[in-house]
């Protein structure tokens, strides 16, 4: 056998992991015990963080990358991929997470941004990144910086799915506009969306985003999760929705099943029975703009 040259950290390898997560649920966890519950429920990956978004919302203060010791504990507890969040633009938090051999970094608006102008140049890292977006332009700017996966932002920590729906609807609408446009219109659309022209061309060719797109922010029930799949998301992130409900193990399992069988309403009905109370949540319509976090990111 001749010498084989292995290439690591390539975009294909980063994007490949996101492809493997499709049709899956990624759950926020704050302890190794919660990570284990998530894995047992069938989560495709876990997101290790110190406080779930609803607590960050309630407690205020600056939200930062989690304690590396906590992250390592979670990595040891489960065999599924472990993700963790870095602040927007915080290059060093991201390098620290990479040094911990995290499987995916979420450059997340849920944490307090470290840079109010720039995002991390993610193509310089060997570890893949996922970033939030509210529309196609924002998604493609992140992909242009090297993100291997996108999640629509929603409004984290509210348990209200309306913003997640608004954002995937907007992404879909923007994609339809690109697909339906004549080649001559594409540069103007790129300018209007603030998106790299080459990536607009890719969207035109593929008819979808060039990377996997999950839903996030406000998903609290199996029906919410299935709704996001019906709207065209490749999978879902569930943050506060699971461990802020009163039967996390059962709800986690139900959400996993609803995502795998999202077209099967009978099954979604079945798994939704007797889950106990969902997270209490707060209605986004009654929130002031300054309390919304989806606006973070540029």
């Amino acid at each position, binding site marked *: 056998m001749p010498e084989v040259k292995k290439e690591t950290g390539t975009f294909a390898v980063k994007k490949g992991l996101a*492809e493997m997560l499709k*049709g*899956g649920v990624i759950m926020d966890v704050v302890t190794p015990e919660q990570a284990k519950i998530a894995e047992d429920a069938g989560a495709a990956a876990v997101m290790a963080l110190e406080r779930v978004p609803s607590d960050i919302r309630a407690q205020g203060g600056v939200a930062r990358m989690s304690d590396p010791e906590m992250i390592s504990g979670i990595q040891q507890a489960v065999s599924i991929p472990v993700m963790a969040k870095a602040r927007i633009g915080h290059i060093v938090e991201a390098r620290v997470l990479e040094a911990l*051999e995290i499987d995916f970094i979420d450059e997340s608006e849920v944490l307090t941004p470290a840079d109010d102008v720039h995002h991390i140049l993610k193509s310089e890292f060997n570890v893949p990144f996922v970033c939030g977006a509210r529309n196609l332009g924002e998604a493609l700017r992140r992909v242009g910086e090297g993100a291997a996966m996108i999640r629509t932002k929603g409004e984290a920590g509210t348990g209200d799915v309306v913003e997640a729906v608004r954002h995937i609807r907007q992404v879909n609408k923007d994609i339809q506009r690109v697909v339906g446009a004549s080649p001559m219109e594409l540069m103007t659309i790129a300018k209007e969306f603030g998106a790299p022209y080459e990536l607009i061309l890719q969207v035109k060719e593929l008819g979808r985003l060039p990377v996997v797109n999950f839903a996030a922010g406000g998903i609290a029930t199996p029906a919410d999760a299935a709704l996001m799949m019906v709207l065209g998301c490749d999978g879902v992130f569930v943050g506060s929705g699971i461990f802020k409900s009163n039967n996390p193990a059962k709800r986690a399992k139900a959400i996993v099943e609803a995502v795998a069988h999202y077209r099967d309403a009978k099954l979604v009905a079945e798994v939704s029975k007797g889950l106990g109370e969902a997270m209490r949540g707060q209605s986004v319509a009654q929130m002031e703009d300054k309390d919304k976090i989806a606006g973070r990111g540029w």
Partner: protein
Amino acid sequence: MKIGILALQGAVREHRSLLRYMGVETVDVLNPQDLHGISGLILPGGESTTVGKLLVRYGLLEPVAEAGRAGLPIFGTCTGLILLSKHINGSAQPRLGLMDTCVERNAFGRQLASFEADIPVPALGEAPFHTVFIRAPYIEQAGEGVTVLLRLEDKILFAREGNLLAAAFHPELTSDTRVHEYFLRMVATAQTSR
């Protein structure tokens, strides 16, 4: 000829597009009744613990294992390779247990160790195959009935046992159709011998 793709979780779309590009009809397998009328089954990459649990919960594990024992050609990539194996080191997760193999999960390490490489695979012809490994497993040991199609540094990465085919890499993430062609030849042979 219709090929089923287990569609519980993972890289379903990629297998589907590659097969359709090759002119093959596909069907998503989500429930036991979806197994009727298929000539072969693909188990795509995903998270093996997730897929294993969903196979059990929806009563698919036993029907799929039974079909495999009865001679249905099954091709597993990555997670599919794990599910096909009799032995999984350090894991009690649900499996089909059809191949006389012993696998190591996440065997190359975490995502940072995921890689791509051009590797010659004699069974696929002269040109090297562009392999993509994502948090990949490998076969540590294989019984006598297993034909090793690719071995790298003592790790078995591609193997066949009768009607079963297993790859630790992801041919569906490339546009090279040779692994799928190999599987379709197995399917064609199984059909003529019936």
